[in-house]
């Protein structure tokens, strides 16, 4: 494990990028996915159709295609992602939130939003019919029914499928490494190139960190699920 220990700073920087990708894209996909789920169950037919089309197109497209489009495709249309350029120097190295990072965050958010929307929709379907009827009976309009009664309960019922989606997102951040973000997968690939003799131990080290990230997240989600469970 010497190689791993010697390169601990590069690994740390890699996983910092991984976690940042996960956090920012996680929040972004949650916001976008909620809007799409609301469109999907709302009363406006056109928006419902648009949401269905969005979900079935994005769900069936490989993430790599989405990221290729954002990373290399859209700049050809003069849509550059250089409006964010933050470099955080640390003792271990720079954390760069540049155009590549931004393109990947947006791509990951748009991709994950389709799965978030489906998870939320299944949560909305889990809310008993009587709840919506009661909410309407006290005179709440559609927005009020959603905001005050349905969505709070739907979000609770949504915790387990949403946790699955976000665990997938943690692992999907590696695809951003394949198109140039210096995250964990990217660091691992350059290390396995440089230290040919220690490939397996490098892999095991990176894999174990991912296992820890995933297990910590699913443990937290499980606790949340138990605490929030609808009686």
């Amino acid at each position, binding site marked *: 494990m010497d190689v791993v220990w010697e390169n601990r700073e590069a690994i740390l920087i890699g996983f910092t990028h991984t976690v940042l990708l996960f956090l920012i894209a996680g929040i972004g996909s949650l916001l976008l996915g909620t809007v799409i789920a609301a469109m999907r169950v709302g009363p*406006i037919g056109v928006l419902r159709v648009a949401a269905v089309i969005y979900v079935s*197109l994005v769900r069936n497209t490989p993430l790599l295609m989405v990221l290729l489009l954002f990373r290399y495709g859209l700049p050809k249309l003069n849509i550059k992602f250089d409006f964010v350029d933050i470099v955080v120097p640390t003792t271990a190295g720079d954390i760069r939130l540049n155009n590549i990072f931004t393109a990947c965050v947006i791509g990951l958010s748009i991709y994950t939003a389709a799965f978030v929307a489906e998870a939320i929709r299944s949560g909305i379907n889990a809310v008993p019919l009587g709840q919506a009827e009661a909410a309407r009976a006290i005179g709440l309009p559609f927005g009020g029914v959603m905001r005050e009664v349905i969505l709070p309960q739907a979000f609770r019922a949504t915790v387990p499928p949403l946790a699955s989606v976000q665990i997938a*997102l943690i*692992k999907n951040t590696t695809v951003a490494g394949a198109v140039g973000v210096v995250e964990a997968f990217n660091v691992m690939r350059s290390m396995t190139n440089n230290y040919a003799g220690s490939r397996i131990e490098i892999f095991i080290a990176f894999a174990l960190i991912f296992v820890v990230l995933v297990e910590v997240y699913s443990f937290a989600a499980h606790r949340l699920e138990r605490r929030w469970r609808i009686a």
Partner: protein
Amino acid sequence: MSNNSVLFDTPGPKAAARHRIYTVLAVVVLLGLLAVAVMRLADNNQFEGRKWEPFVSPVYIERFLVDGVLETLKMAVAAIILAVIFGALFGIGKLSEHRPLRWFSWLVVEFWRAVPVLLAMVLVFYVWGIDRGDTGAFWSVVVALMLYNGAVLAEVFRAGINAVPKGQVEAAYALGMRKTAVMMQIQLPQAVKIMLPALISQMVVALKDTSLGYAVAAPGLTNVAKLTYNSPSNGQNIIPTVLVTAGLYIVMNLILTWIATWVQKKFVGEKRIDVAAAAAGQD
């Protein structure tokens, strides 16, 4: 409309009028977005003939279908067959009465479910596939997909076997069958029937993930796409290429989803195990 009546009443005249206004607004906004996108594409010469020529000329179409779609399907089918075997072994292993076997299976399944497919793919490629050319890259993708999808399917198998009513097992034991016979002749056949739709949806995941072969230069659709947009004569046509390639994946996946629904209706009926819960983390 009917399935949405949970959330709102059938609109009265006022609400209907308001909905009409929203509909018009939504149409205007959506068409506006589409128009902006098309104009952007046109302004930046994305409709140029040579950029789209690869997708209409017979040579390229043949390449996309033979080197692309066919190779991708080969990888996906090989991966899913191996994943089913892997999943069956470890899924049954997790239900074993022998504690070490149970723990070992649990460890294997948890590990490969949490490790990103790309990491596994690169490991297999560097350790085994790197000097074996296209074959090496092909099997690196297949093995990595087998490990991940197999681990997910192990959970599906376990859930499927547990979904077989307890009485069946008791009846089988009462007839004097042994443990192995009960598993092989009573539990597994019924479990497989329950699981079929989940198996097919997992094929969609495997098919999509074959695109990650891009990272190890494996054959398949992404490789053909890469060659197409890197070729200078096509005028840097990455956007047309991505659109066409994504379209091919979407068509293949929609066909698979359609088969899954058909199988569900034809062979399984209403009973269905909760795929989302069983296959936590599938993407």
